[in-house]
């Protein structure tokens, strides 16, 4: 083996080349082993839900299953809409106007999952506690949401999430 000045040898080159090839191979086989944990094709195929909001009476709330989680569809009363619109943005931990959250004011669509640690807040049934702001109350750690689903009090950091949805006809929404 020829001596050269910088002390590197052909053997060093072989070491680096073979370790690199082995690392690349390991990465190539590691990815399928990890990616199999991601949602499968049939799971992804179930990722949208359609729902007819005309069946929801004023003052009534319905829970729809979307991707295995509840989506709250609430047909709000005039009083609830007014209350939500009247809130001062400066009073809100996560400021957002009601108009931004409910493009069609009477129909509010929310992901029914507390933004604290993922419990389902109470407030869908008439007999449920609705919290101090008349919206939803999460019993796990005491988060209060208003009639727009915005966090007002408690440990949850952000408002209830609005899922992606659109009206595909006058009364049918497609969630997801």
């Amino acid at each position, binding site marked *: 083996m020829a001596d050269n000045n910088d002390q590197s040898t052909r053997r060093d080159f072989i070491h680096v080349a073979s370790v690199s090839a*082995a690392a690349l191979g390991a990465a190539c086989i590691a990815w*399928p*082993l990890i*990616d*199999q*944990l*991601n949602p*499968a*094709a*049939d*799971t992804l195929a179930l990722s949208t839900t359609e729902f007819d909001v005309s069946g929801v009476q004023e003052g009534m709330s319905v829970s729809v299953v979307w991707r295995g989680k509840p989506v709250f569809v609430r047909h709000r009363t005039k009083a609830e809409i007014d209350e939500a619109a009247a809130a001062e943005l400066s009073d809100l931990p996560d400021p957002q106007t009601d108009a931004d959250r409910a493009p069609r004011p009477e129909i509010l669509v929310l992901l029914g999952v507390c933004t604290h640690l993922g419990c389902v807040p109470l407030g869908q049934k008439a007999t449920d506690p609705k919290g101090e702001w008349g919206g939803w109350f999460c019993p796990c750690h005491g988060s209060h949401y208003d009639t727009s689903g915005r966090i007002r009090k408690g440990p949850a950091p952000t408002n209830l999430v609005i899922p992606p949805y659109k009206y595909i006809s006058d009364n049918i929404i497609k969630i997801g």
Partner: protein
Amino acid sequence: MSGPKLTNPVVRWIDHRLPVFTFLHHEMHEYPTPKNLNYWWNFGSLAGITLVIMIVTGIILSMHYTAHVDHAFQSVERIMRDVNYGWLIRYIHANGASFFFIVVYIHIFRGLYYGSYKAPRELLWMLGVVILLLMMATAFMGYVLPWGQMSFWGATVITNLFSAIPLVGESIVTLLWGGFSVDNPTLNRFFSLHYLLPFVIVGVVVLHIIALHRFGSNNPLGIDVRGEQDTISFHPYYTVKDMFGLSVFLTIMAAVVFFLPNSMGHPDNYIPANPMVTPAHIVPEWYFLPFYAILRAVPDKLLGVLAMFAAIAVLFVLPWLDRSPVRSASFRPIYKIMFWVFLLDCVALTYLGAMPAEGIYVVLSRLCTVYYFFHFIVLLPALSIIETPRSLPRSIGKPVLGGGNGIPAPAPAAAREKP
């Protein structure tokens, strides 16, 4: 024979309290290994790595598999179609089972050729036979899990083997089934055991390696290591050699997984299990065929089952059947020929196991079965007496050069054992 030079203070701190680094250095780095091992000695580490591949892919598959007669087949199809890379992981696992047996069978025949089962490695050999038995049980139960036609009828036929036991046979079969036929309880317990047994295999493999490291590897000359001049350290010499063998092995395995994934399977197993209809021609997986041929060769039910189990049991007592003091077939002129005849006999049994049990195949199966047992029970003990081995080299370090004509050949056992 010094300990490792641990420079990292954290490593040294740990090693002082928990000497894992010293242990690994001792057993995987400086471990003195005969310097004349040929490529047939690659298959032990290959088998170990294949076991790891099987366990990793198996754990992943179990995340997506449903052990229920109504859902098992569909959950496997879902793995093939919907789960990300599920097809790849399942094909690695299914073909991995075949490759595991290829590797292990080569490993076993290596041991047979070079006399690796002889003193002082008898327990090492017997632990290996235990691993083979566990592998067979695991592979059989794994084949049942997809709940296709071959799964169901394979399970039915193999569990029915136990009905050959006099008096209690039927009760044992009912016990194995958890019912009156192969059904959901059978599938559930097979899944449970198929998950358990690989870890039992890992345990026996650890014992196998402990026993191996007691006296070190046998070698192609079959003579004992006489000192440091006969050995080289395991690392880097055999780690690199094993890695090279592994890359060749993985290349072949990848070629099969990607281009011929169903070549070693049976198309009938893509038909959901139907307890009302048996496929016209049922065969076990190829690695069971020799034993299946022995089973069918014997016209009596009980004796057939006994012969099949005896075909493996005889391996346990092999170290005491072959009394020749010379290990390697290189120095045993007659045994060397008979080894190849025996290998041919096993290949023939594999072929005959796949053929229908009729006409000439039955006759040939019987001949090959008789020869299988003749080899172990008559030929090997007889060779120990009548065969005159060639003279052995003086040492591994000096197989031919520098020192006369080697040590004289050990006398045949008959002459030697006279008082």
